[in-house]
């Protein structure tokens, strides 16, 4: 490994900097901030285009704010929504670091969540400190298996992970539909696809339930924060993490330095899948207590936005996830009290990614003097 320590890092410093490590307040904070503000302004225009007045649009945003940070309950909802987003964001981010684009977090969440729910309802009589970790582990492994497939196909056949992961998302969705109708999973006496309920000993406990049972924020948040710490340590303090970043920066240089691209692709996709699997398990064990069709509800896709906004840095991902969690929680409130559809949040998120990925748009719009560099992660089909 010693020979490997220098060349890729030296050769590719510019690239690595673009992605993250340099904590420049302009690229790290100002541009994401302006990106969010601009996206929200475009959101107002959009609401008004559907026939609402400016006042109604402002009411909608007031509801958005109220629903995300307006009360203890709102903050709890924001953190509850942020929990799976942190894990899904980490999943996409760690793959980005190795030069892979994991659009499959959605499917990995589904498979992981199904494994977790199975362990959660099928085993009884275990104490919580064994049952809960077991269920989470099952979720991690399920997601890792779903991540292994695109990783190994990419490494062995060159199949682009973007297409494979998207297809696996659809397959996972159908598999969930199928399994929820089997005797193994379906709740007794029900005809609709809904799984049995997770045992209390496998549920992620509500952390503030003693104050008010409506405060849904659960232990999964701690799990997510620990995961962020572990991923940060893995990426920046271990040889494996160095290999991930080296392969992401320049695969041929990494190969010449003696690293196994196959190993990195497979391993990183398994970790990414596992993290997404944990996100799915967190939803099952902490919020839903059972599985229903499509329980991942687009969180895996939002993870892409989270990873990009957080510049693939684990702590940046946490911050971005809290922001998007707020948008999600506030979006619910907006839909209920201002009658503006929650899909607006998806549009705002897409706009945020555009502005973060193309900072030149922001610098031109606000006449900033920062030299803007665009994000470049993938390298076409054949690499």
């Amino acid at each position, binding site marked *: 490994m010693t020979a490997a320590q220098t060349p890729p890092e030296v050769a590719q410093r510019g690239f690595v900097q673009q992605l993250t490590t340099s904590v420049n307040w302009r690229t790290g904070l100002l541009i994401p901030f302006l990106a969010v503000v601009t996206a929200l302004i475009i959101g107002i225009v959009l609401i008004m285009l*559907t026939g609402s007045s400016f006042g109604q649009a402002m009411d909608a945003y007031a509801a958005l704010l109220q629903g995300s940070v307006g009360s203890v309950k709102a903050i709890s909802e924001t953190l509850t929504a942020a929990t799976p987003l942190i894990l899904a964001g980490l999943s996409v981010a760690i793959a980005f670091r190795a030069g892979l684009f994991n659009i499959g977090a959605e499917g990995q969440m589904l498979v992981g969540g199904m494994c977790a729910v199975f362990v959660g309802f099928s085993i009884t009589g275990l104490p919580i400190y064994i049952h809960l970790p077991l269920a989470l582990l099952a979720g991690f492994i399920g997601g890792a298996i779903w991540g292994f497939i695109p990783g190994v196909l990419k490494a062995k056949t060159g199949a682009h992970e973007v297409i494979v992961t998207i297809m696996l998302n659809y397959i996972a969705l159908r598999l969930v539909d199928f399994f929820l109708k089997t005797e193994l999973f379906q709740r007794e006496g029900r005809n609709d696809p809904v799984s049995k309920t997770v045992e209390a000993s496998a549920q992620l406990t509500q952390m503030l339930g003693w104050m008010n049972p409506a405060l849904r924020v659960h232990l999964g948040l701690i799990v997510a924060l620990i995961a962020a710490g572990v991923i940060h340590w893995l990426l920046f303090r271990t040889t494996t993490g160095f290999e991930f970043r080296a392969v992401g920066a320049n695969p041929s240089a990494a190969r010449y330095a003696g690293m196994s691209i196959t190993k990195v692709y497979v391993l990183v996709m398994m970790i990414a899948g596992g993290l997404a699997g944990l996100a799915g398990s967190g939803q099952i064990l902490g919020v839903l207590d059972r599985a229903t069709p499509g329980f991942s509800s687009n969180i895996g896709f939002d993870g892409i936005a989270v990873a990009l906004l957080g510049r693939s840095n684990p702590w940046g991902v946490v911050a971005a996830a809290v922001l998007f969690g707020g948008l999600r929680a506030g979006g619910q409130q907006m839909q209920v009290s201002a009658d503006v559809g929650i899909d607006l949040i998806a549009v705002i998120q897409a706009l945020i990614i555009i502005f973060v990925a193309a900072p030149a748009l922001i610098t031109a719009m606000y006449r900033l003097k920062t030299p803007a560099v665009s994000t*470049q992660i993938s390298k076409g089909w054949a690499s």
Partner: protein
Amino acid sequence: MNQASMPMPRESYELTGKRTKELTKRQIRKARISGIVLLLLSGLVMLVFVPAVSGVSTFGLSTPDDAIQLDSLAVPSAGSLWVLSSVLAFLGATQFFRGFQGKTTIILGISFGVFAIALMVWAASGQEFSLISMLVATVSRSTPIALGALSGILCERSGVVNIGIEGMLLGGAFTGVVMGSLLGGWIGLLSATLTGGVLALLLAVLAVKFRVDQIIIGVVINILVLGLTSFLTAQVLVKKPELNDAPIFAAVKIPVLGDIPIIGPMFFDQTIIVYGMFILIGSVTYLLFRTRWGLRTRAVGENPKAADSLGVSVAKVRYLAVIYGGMVGGFAGAWFTLGSVGRFDENMTGGRGFIGLAAMIFGAWNPIGAFLAALIFGFSESLQQKFALLNIPIPSEFLAMAPYLVTIVVVAGVVGRVRPPAADGQPYEKQ
């Protein structure tokens, strides 16, 4: 700044040398794997299908209103399954021990065709299976996939990866239905096409001018369009259902040709969008490979630097190719609404854009190849529909998975054999 466009001459020589060596080893392994797959399929036919059938399988070859009526084709179920499974076993064993080398793709195609026939014989055992209606549906269902692939080909031949086809389809489907409800089908079709063009302009500006990662832009286009159309559906279309009720293009029968048995209903009695697909496949093939514009586009996709030094404007060529590609994608989107049901539902394209991408790769970035690949996907979709009607004892979820599984197999199995344009996905910086 961006390492993708940095030349590395010496390294790449060594790399290609190493790669070809690896490839032969890979090819042997691949031949083994595909051989085993074929043998397994043969076993499946012999051990699962044969015991389950009895009597004859009847295939309908004409629809009631055809001018020339063909008799239904009846074959003994078990006997033909034995024959088909032996063919599969023979092909599988040959592939396993010797490999078909250059002809592998064709042989694999034939084998899956044989398996598909076996599936149909099994499904039709003891009942009537309208083969003709399935073939007609195959051509219709392969239309958005073929057009999506064509959209990708136009973009990628110029060196811009377009993952946003799905979004362009969905956008086209949406504006198609809204404008179609307001001003009639033709205006709807035109607006769908323009919507694809506008989305492609976004892709082109970000990819060519701002040099943003093209895969990210594509994904963003998909998320953006899905969000926008869902938002507008919930905010506007639900409250004003008259905006979500467009006229449907009826099938137009071409005189004489439409009366040919089998071929007629399949190719000459379809909607205007299907005909549009045939015209576009033909004309884009001609434009790409027989005109100066096509040569320049392909040159920019292969080696933008060389094209630039000969005075071709890389940016202009890419803008044009991407916008044309987007318009094809938007046109394809109209198939979902104006070409079939006349109303828009959230996320109604259901991944067809991505399947189109797989068809593009399977077809080796060639319009005609992509059309043939799209036919396979269209076939698998309409087979699934047919099976759902025939009460086949396979859970519908697994049938619904089939196109996605086929896509993965295609992308994993074919991508090493075909070569994308050399500069695909790489932003170009004029020096």
